[in-house]
């Protein structure tokens, strides 16, 4: 009994984290392999995929909600990721490949609605070295698929440290991102908010829009993404005099506690759903809600606003401390694991961007030391596809050279220019249109081919 008595302070700390500091489990994501659904018939493939998703995930939402009530910690999202669709759908030969891809997108959307999840990821292709006809069809189908479905998320991996960057795919994805936005112009280009272009994509990421179920994964798996910027913020605010060593320890201790919740929820969900437990992704994921901002943590460290000089160093330290604290708290850490800095989903980022303090170029620098990349950034609607491709190439180069995952999720908001803003609502938030360089990168992008894989020695 003695070892399991808790002091009132400990109990109250936990309750305060949930009620005042917005500690939550951001997502329980079920990964489902669709490899056994492949068929020569597009129709049969769509039916098999729909049936398998509905069967495996039938109890996902109810289970997530039951665990949340029992443990008293909210689970914000229940989601699904599937095998990259390009791999599964390529064998279907009785219909036009583009039509096949769209058919699967609709089947995924219906299945997601049926089981009650708000997003399903995996409308994806892995083309870091080159693209097959199925990969090409998938990439070309993305704008229409995202416009015609509500819950489907798409991602494409265009580079890796081991293979270099597929610049033909980069050029294509510049056009795909732009078209995805244009086809959803009435919703400020929402389609592009559901599309992530990766370098070094991970196979077990539970976070949308970039989640897919990798080919090295089991048939079905439970991955959990934790959150808790508010908890870290409160801890940092309580230590205004601490030097960086002490601050790092405070953040590590907090990240440990947050991640333990992720581990508990992942294992419990896995046990109840009869699917193996995959990983905890120990990312700090902000939401537009006040008090749930990563930017505010950096500001609490002593920066007047996020985006000024010092922001990159502050973020590097935060990201590293989160990883160190979290790594000890869970047996299996994976996914993206770090601090996210999406602009539209973080009130501190939004404000700083609106003031013109946080610039596109500074965001790019910050992504070199944290999780993910250029995320949820609205740019002018008339930005050329080649410029978007060049943005993707820059970000992918950072990932390739630094052996880390990077991603681009920019929204070229149709008809909008600098000074305007876009509103996506819910967790996707709102964003001011941020200026990008207007001089042309077109000749660079038009070269095509591949940027060779980097040397892994002589590291300077």
């Amino acid at each position, binding site marked *: *009994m003695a070892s399991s*008595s808790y002091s009132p302070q400990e109990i109250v700390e936990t309750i305060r984290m949930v009620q005042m500091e917005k500690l939550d489990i951001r997502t329980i994501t079920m990964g489902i392999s669709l490899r056994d659904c492949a068929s020569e018939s597009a129709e049969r493939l769509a039916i098999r995929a729909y049936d398998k998703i509905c069967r495996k995930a039938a109890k996902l939402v109810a289970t997530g909600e039951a665990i949340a009530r*029992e443990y008293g910690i909210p689970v914000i999202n229940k989601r699904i990721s599937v095998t990259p669709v390009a791999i599964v759908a390529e064998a279907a030969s009785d219909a036009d490949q583009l039509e096949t891809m769209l058919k699967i997108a609709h089947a995924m959307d219906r299945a997601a609605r049926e089981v009650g999840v708000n997003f399903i990821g995996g409308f994806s292709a892995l083309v870091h070295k080159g693209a097959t006809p199925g990969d090409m069809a998938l990439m070309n189908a993305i704008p229409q698929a995202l416009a015609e479905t509500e819950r489907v998320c798409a991602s494409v991996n265009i580079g890796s440290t081991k293979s270099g960057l597929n610049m033909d795919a980069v050029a294509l994805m510049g056009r795909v991102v732009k078209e995805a936005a244009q086809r959803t112009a009435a919703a400020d280009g929402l389609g592009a908010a559901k599309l992530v272009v990766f370098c070094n994509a991970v196979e077990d990421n539970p976070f949308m829009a970039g989640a897919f179920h990798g080919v090295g994964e089991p048939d079905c798996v439970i991955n959990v993404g934790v959150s808790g910027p508010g908890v870290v913020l409160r801890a940092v605010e309580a230590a205004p005099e601490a030097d960086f060593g002490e601050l790092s320890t405070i953040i590590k201790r907090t990240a440990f*506690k947050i991640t333990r919740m992720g*581990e508990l929820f992942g*294992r419990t969900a896995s*046990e109840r759903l009869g699917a193996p437990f995959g990983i905890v992704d120990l990312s700090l994921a902000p939401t537009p809600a006040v008090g749930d901002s990563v930017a505010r943590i950096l500001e609490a460290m002593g920066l007047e606003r996020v985006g000024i000089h010092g922001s990159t160093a502050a973020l590097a330290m935060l990201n590293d401390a989160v990883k160190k604290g979290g790594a000890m708290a869970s*047996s299996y850490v994976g996914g993206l694991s770090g601090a996210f800095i999406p602009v539209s989903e973080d009130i501190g980022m939004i404000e700083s961007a609106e003031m013109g303090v946080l610039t596109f170029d500074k965001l790019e620098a910050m992504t070199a030391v944290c999780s993910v990349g250029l995320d949820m950034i609205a740019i002018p609607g008339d930005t050329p596809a080649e410029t978007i491709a060049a943005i993707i190439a820059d970000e992918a180069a950072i990932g390739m050279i630094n052996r880390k995952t990077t991603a681009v999720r920019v929204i070229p908001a149709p008809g909008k220019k600098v000074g305007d803003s876009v509103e996506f609502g819910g967790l996707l938030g709102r964003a001011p249109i941020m200026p990008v360089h207007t001089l042309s990168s077109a000749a660079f992008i038009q070269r095509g081919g591949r940027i060779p894989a980097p040397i892994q020695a002589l590291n300077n």
Partner: protein
Amino acid sequence: MSKLPDIKNTAEAKTRAIVTVIGEDQVGIIAGVATILADSGANILDISQSIMQEFFVMIMMVDLAKAKVSFEELKTQLNAKGAGMNLKIDIQREDVFKLMHRV
């Protein structure tokens, strides 16, 4: 019983829960909560109370091994009791606290 010895190392840990009461001190808090627990077949293992930041905080560790009602039903009853007394009364499975505060 458990396949996950690193977290849930005993059978009793699975059935234990923490009841928390937070709010303004008033007559009848313990009696009210204890009545609901007794009627539900929940065994009270430990009670502590203190004043933290001007708030009355009462914590009970209970064992639900012989409970006659479901966890959800008990939670609903306690939440309702809290609303009636202008207090926040909740119940959470013990694992949450164990994992967060014990390495």
